[in-house]
């Protein structure tokens, strides 16, 4: 039993990382209808920027500077790339997002090179044993950070004037514009928030696996998470991330041996397919309210 719990907890902690990436996707999709293919690339950029800032300044300042870089990226993206595309079909926005992903990866690599870089932000690697279950300080730390981040976002969206405006924009762009909400600025704010989420995800993944090109590929792991959670649902993204993380870990350990292992890599997609069959809006996706 304790082994099961350990597998489960480890899976959940990996799941938090998926949640973070999926959260970035969901935020931008909700606000602007853009499927932000570049979310993974943004995590990579944040990781790379943080590594290079860390060589010349203390951690807190490096984090501030990294968020600064993400803010610049957000405003640049919205005002340069997406401004001329306002009111264009979703497919065009999606193409622009793919272009952005390659642009960000390319720029990141041409500045910092393609080698994997170690990222150490000063969390000691300690393992505790609680009732025969092994817990890692590292995973726990990022679990707490992710939880705080999510709680902060929920309060921001539900309780503040800007959060309310962003929810309005998510529902109906043109109506939001008609009541005086500046659309482009609202989108830029959303991209900044997604940038912050990407930073946290980038730091968490980067300090575990090193900051490397494959970071931008975690975007693909977020796809089944999005389908499970519903592409525009924030609680959905979080919960689905946990389900996928725990599910793939459990599947690997308990089903893997019968089919020769390696189930972890495709199990989430299998889960997503099941959801597409039976619950296409995901667990919490915005069901289209249709008036009859």
């Amino acid at each position: 039993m304790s082994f099961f719990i350990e597998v489960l907890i480890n899976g959940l902690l990996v799941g938090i990382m998926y949640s973070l990436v999926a959260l970035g996707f969901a935020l931008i999709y909700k606000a602007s209808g853009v499927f932000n293919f570049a979310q993974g690339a943004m995590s990579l950029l944040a990781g790379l920027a943080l590594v290079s800032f860390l060589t010349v300044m203390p951690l807190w300042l490096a984090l501030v500077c990294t968020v600064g870089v993400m803010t610049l990226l957000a405003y640049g993206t919205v005002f340069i790339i997406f401004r001329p595309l306002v009111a264009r079909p979703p497919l065009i926005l999606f193409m622009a997002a793919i272009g952005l992903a390659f642009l960000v990866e390319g720029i990141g690599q041409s500045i910092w090179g393609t080698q994997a870089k170690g990222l150490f932000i000063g969390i000691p690697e300690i393992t505790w044993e609680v009732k025969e279950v092994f817990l890692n300080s590292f995973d726990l730390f990022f679990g707490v950070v992710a939880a705080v981040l999510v709680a902060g976002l929920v309060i921001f969206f539900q309780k503040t004037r800007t959060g309310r405006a962003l929810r309005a924009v998510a529902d109906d762009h043109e109506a939001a514009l008609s009541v005086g909400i500046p659309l482009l600025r609202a989108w830029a704010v959303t991209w900044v928030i997604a940038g912050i989420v990407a930073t946290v995800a980038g730091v968490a993944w980067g300090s575990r696996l090193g900051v490397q090109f494959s970071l931008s590929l975690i975007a693909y792991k977020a796809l089944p998470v999005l389908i499970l959670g519903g592409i525009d649902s924030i609680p959905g993204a979080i919960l689905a991330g946990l389900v996928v993380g725990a599910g793939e870990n459990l599947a690997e350990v308990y089903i893997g041996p019968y089919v020769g292992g390696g189930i972890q890599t495709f199990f989430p997609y299998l889960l997503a397919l099941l959801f597409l069959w039976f619950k296409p809006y995901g667990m919490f996706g915005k069901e289209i309210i249709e008036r009859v």
Partner: protein
Amino acid sequence: MEPAPLLKVNNIEVIYEHVILVLKGVSLEVPPGGIVSLLGANGAGKTTTLKAISNLVKAERGEVTKGTVEFEGKRIDRMYAPAVVKMGLIQIMEGRRTFEHLTVEDDLLTGAYTRGHATKGIKESLEMVYSYFPRLVERKNVKTGYISGGEMQMCAIGRALMAKPKLMLLDEPSMGLAPLLVQEIFEIIVRLNKEEKVAMLLAEQNAAMALQFANYGYIMENGRVVLDGDSETLKDNADVREFYLGLTEIGKKSYRDVKHYKRRKRWLA
């Protein structure tokens, strides 16, 4: 001397997607505190006229290519829509367009966005809106996607009021509502005009209702204003009676009388 108009639209032309000419020189005026109606059939250009004034055309890849729009003497046709709202000109779009996943109260509060971060006065405005639309009070925690069409229209008007407007552009407030409800909404519009001193520019297909409540009217066809005048004058105009009010000299017209129905209008569209 007449007071300076609150809104002055001077010979505007609107082109969508760089090629489609929708408005071909529209001019109109709204005096401070007036109710002006803009009548016309589907596709006459009423909605585009309103969106050109509020600058929402730009969000639909439209552009005002000629002419000027002045609000309180200032040119606004090159401004960003939210800046125009901040000056006190707000449009209530066709089809209500409430934010369906927001509660009624949150929806109303989005209307106060341009008033900035200060919370002063916003609570009073909310009370004021609820006093005009008591029905919204009991619905305030319900998502607007689940309220009735009439309540949505009330919510949309209330939301616009939250911005403290001097001029409201209403696009088809009667659309899809039961006649009694239409009457109720129009009565509230008139009260808002009198008590809160909000001028109204009202685009309507329901000509009878609009002429009953407005002081002045413009009639649009094919992207042009073809006729304008006091509501009383318009009501007496033979063409308006025939084509917009469905009346003839002998009362209700019979549609069996096809030849008569094809009578030419006296204006050129």
